[in-house]
């Protein structure tokens, strides 16, 4: 059984990514389940979702249980650090979305460099998408998914992911989506 969490901000496509991964798992005949996707999505709040692949998972991912994390936004990735364990493999996207507290000067956006270097010491694998990486924002989600799919032991094979994209992605958007995915796979 493998467990994965996705962290991000409402509106980034967490729900969609969950659907994609689940669809791919079904195609691969892997028993897949999710729990609740926490957060009031479209209101710009933080959102995280857990997926379990294989028995006896029921979709719940608890603290310390995530074998994989896909972090769509930097601050939220840091916030979900408690889900990780020493064997975790993680991809963190280079998107930064300022919460109100930062705009208002009440808090500071956290320093990512220190966090990522500590993360690299603690866990198995970290792919930190660099600041200067620019992808068409419409397909950035697929780029990050591509990177995730290249993490060792990722629960669903890439061929199933691309099949799922063909089936689910917006008409006309499948080709660029898959292209972005491929780009992600060769990122590191």
């Amino acid at each position: 059984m493998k467990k994965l969490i996705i962290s991000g901000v409402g509106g980034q496509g967490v729900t969609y990514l969950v659907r994609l991964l689940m669809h791919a798992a079904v195609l691969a005949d892997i028993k897949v389940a999710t729990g609740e996707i926490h957060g009031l999505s479209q209101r710009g709040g933080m959102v995280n979702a857990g997926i379990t692949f294989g028995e006896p998972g029921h979709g719940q991912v608890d603290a310390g249980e995530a074998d994989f994390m896909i972090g769509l936004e930097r601050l939220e990735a840091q916030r979900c650090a408690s889900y990780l364990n020493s064997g975790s493999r993680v991809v963190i996207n280079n998107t930064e979305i300022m919460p109100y507290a930062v705009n208002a000067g009440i808090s500071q956006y956290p320093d990512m460099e220190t966090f990522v270097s500590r993360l690299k010491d603690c866990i198995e694998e970290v792919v930190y998408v660099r600041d200067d990486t620019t992808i068409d924002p419409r397909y950035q989600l697929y780029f990050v998914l591509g990177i995730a799919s290249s993490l060792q032991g990722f629960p669903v094979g890439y061929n199933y992911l691309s099949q799922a994209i063909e089936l689910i992605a917006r008409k006309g958007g499948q080709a660029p989506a898959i292209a972005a995915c491929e780009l992600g796979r060769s990122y590191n």
Partner: protein
Amino acid sequence: MLKNRVAEILTPFDAPESVCVMGNEGVARAAIESGVAGVFAYPGTPSTEISMIFSSIREFQAADNWAAEYPQIANNHIYFEYSVNEKIALEKAIACSIGNKSSMACMKNVGLNVAADPLMTIPYQVINAPLVVIVCDDPGCHSSSNEQDSRHFAISASIPLLDPASPGEAYRMTREAFIISEDLKLPVIVRLTTRVSHGRETFHYNSIKPDQRMGCFNRDPVNINVPARTAIAHERLLEKLQGERIQPYFSNLNTKQLSKSDSKELAVITSGMATSYFLELHEIHELAGELAWLKIGMINPFPELDVLNFLQKGYRRILVLEELDPILENGIRIVAQKNHIDVDIVGKNFSGLTTVGEYSLSLTTRALEQFLQRPLSHKQPLAMLADFTDKLPVRPPTLCVGCPHRATFYAMKLVLPRNDDETILCGDIGCLGLGALPPMGMMDTVNHMGMSISMAQGLDLAIGQNKNGRAGKTIALIGDGTFFHSGMTSLLNAIYTNADISIIIFDNRTIAMTGGQINPGAPLTNIGEFQRVDIEKLVRGMGVDFVESMDPFKVEDTYQKIKASINHRGVSVLISVSPCVMLEYDRQISTTPVYVDHNKCKTCANHSDRAQYCSHETTPEYGLARARAKITAKQHIAGEQQACPANICNHGFFNAILAKDYQTALEIVRDKMLFARTCGDICHRPCERGSHPSVPIKLLKHFVAGDAANFADHEAALQRVRPQTPGHRVAIIGAGPAGLSTAYDLALSGYAVFVFEKEQSPGGVLFHQIPDFRMDKQGLQSEIHILKKLGVSFNYGAALGEQINLQALSREYDAVVLAIGVSISSTLAIVENTVPAQNRYNAMDFLKLFNESKLMLKNDSSFVVIGGGNSAIDAARAAMKLSPENRVILSCIEDRHTMPAFQDEIEEALREGVLIHHNSFISDLQCNSDDELTLRMKAYDSKKDLPSLQCNFIISAIGQHGDAELLRTSGIDTLDQLHRIETNAQSLIPSADNIFAAGDINSNHHMSLIGAIASGKKAAVSVRQLLEGYEYPYEGDRAMQSLNSETALEAESNITSLEDIYQYDLHQTCERCNHCIDNFACPSLVRKNGKITIEQSSCIRCGLCIDVCPNNAIQWQTETAITGEMV
């Protein structure tokens, strides 16, 4: 929902079809498979997806040709509506069922509370076709007002309740529910929880049995509910739950697994979501050998027999895992007790298991560890990462970019001061509730659906009962959906009971928070099935007189309407109408981008030296004051039009007063100069000449400096003195306003300042000449006294050319500033030659003697004052005040409006009885005996004779000039006609390295109080340029230059009360601004590198921020002006 997905969910499968979907979708499918004909719901997380599926089906089935396109599902026609509220949804479902059509009602946990009345009563009667009620509880309150355990309702209503433990079970149990309902002729509740609703897993769909029933109604007395039948009905109901008929269903719904070994020690009984956690751990840790388990699926009626059979296996200890209330646990205890079974039962309060919140894998693991009395291995979070997750910025949900609620709240913010307790904002459920969060903070209460209007009435009643009645208002804030749901009846009550409340309906044309469902006000009638109800007509029909609709993006109109509503007595209703941005996701309202001009955002307009101190506070109230003025003022005046030669930040000063922060307003003046009080008394206000109308700065200065408490506190200036540095010793000659202004600025900059003054007290003309009926002398003293506290040293009785020598000072000090003023009075030869000394004065001497009370003149004196300036007027008024019998005539060559004196002073003089003879001069003078003079007068323009004048005294007020001789002996000979010093542009005296001239003695500068102050400040800058290489020019230079081209000024403005200032908006870009973040906070406004930037990827270009920014820094990006931040 996409068409093909709708088709899919309606497609029957002959062989079981594997799907991977969420529990809610499974419930919908199960209902379809069971032949449901009508579904009735109200949106509510986590149940909403169920009803959304049926809403999509409705749309799908309303399209033309759908039956031809999908013949396989053409027979299955399902009705759906979002009812106005859950009570009606359930009632209508019940009615359909009585009418022989299978139906289902869906709602969230608290929705069942609303539907409780029909739920409790119908079981005593009877239904026909199956009726299933889906209710979704929310342990952990992810998106609900409470975490109630809705299973209690089934017990109270005496109807069956099924409690699925997983998404797949939700599907299967819903199918079972329809069967049980049909069999027992009772409503059956299927109760999900959030994770069961929203979790997804793989299970199988089956075939569909469309409803073939014909709608009909049977006249049966049981349909008529009367008290007489109640006892029998109740018995019959209980018989359904406890009798034989229901028994077979238990085995489908309750499952058990006995332990694999003979061990009869430990067992677990579970229901609901806790089951899933347990089963995962049971498998991972291979507990089959140690633990038997029983899972309960039907909670009501309680499965006594199944539990009894299980308990009779003889377990020593049983752990009950169940979220929320211990319903299952208590039921088990009852069975054990009734049957005298000796078993230790643990559940709530064992190992952290509580009634509060959700369970989880880790909580269940700990409980099992304690139950099994051994550790169970599990992965741990990393301790090394723990400190990274503390203190992260929170990210709560916020109003979306472009949300119309933000616009409404913003207009409310402009109207309502939130620093009092008088206005109470009673909010409600929905997206508008996000307005409670910072920075909006525009809500004081939020409870349950519809409570806003009830709360407002009730609070108004409670507080209004106080003896003094109440100031302020209670305002209810409610969404359009909620208004229909339960606000209407509360409004009716408010009208009926004469409540005094305002109600603002936030009509965003949808039920937004749950994903954008229709409501009666916004039914999206493209399908033609639903009728629109107009809220405004409805409210008027109820009897409200004051009803106004408004577009919240029109800020000023919305502001005015809110204001009018608050002032209205009785019930008033405002409807703020603008569609939710999510209704057209990804839409941009304009093709023109909005951008922020970084030259205006957080940029000080006043000076280039960033190190200049500014007392102005960046507070939300300050931002609101400026922003409010921008929207509501009648007169908009650019700050550049009201520039001060001393560069006082007038817009900062004015806006601090608008924000009622008088202390700060005073400090803003004192940032630049000492004489706040004095200028408030006698400045000739050039800042009010640049625009018409203009903000009455002088009057406001007078007001602010008039507050004794504020005025006396000079601490702020003392706080910012810089430490003294060597090589910075400056001598200032003359302690008039110019010299003292130089002293102030230099002392604050850390210079050692030495002032030399020929009189025995400082102040110059201010102290000696200006009479105390024109200004507050005490105030002046107090202002001057600060200089001593700043370390300036004063040397009195030190006259230039006598006690002190200019060249010597120039050598002894690093710089010298000469500010001796123009002390020689001009005279008329004819007066000097003819009038005896005791009968003539020059105005300066006269006023000095007047101030020192040294004038001993007879009571019945008559005066002629010659001159048209302020000195002449002052002397004339002083002469009048010496005795009530005095007579004073003022003769001047000017007309009324070309007299240099201040118009208001002229008017005062006239009021006090001074007679003014314009356009006249003395052509001849004769001195009679007896102290009497005869003056022959002629008209100045025509030279015609005028009537002669008789008087005792002549006072000459025809001007001052410098002391040429004194200046020449001091080595200065570049003098103008009035013997004032001609300096270079930096006020440096030619032929000197380090001697500067300031004030009246400098010929470049305007002879007025503010001119002297500005001149003094300029000299201070020149000294700093010389001695420390200060890089910046004098900040008030431009305003100072324009003093020389003066136009006559009207009388002082007629501001009668402080409220009148709110008609003005004095605007200029300001660095101390955080308004858009503090009071508006659109997520697209992001702070980067100290400026605000618009994140173009999220901005929908509603343009509201353009109205918000008080610096006018946010603009549409037209082709012409694009500066600062680029798109």
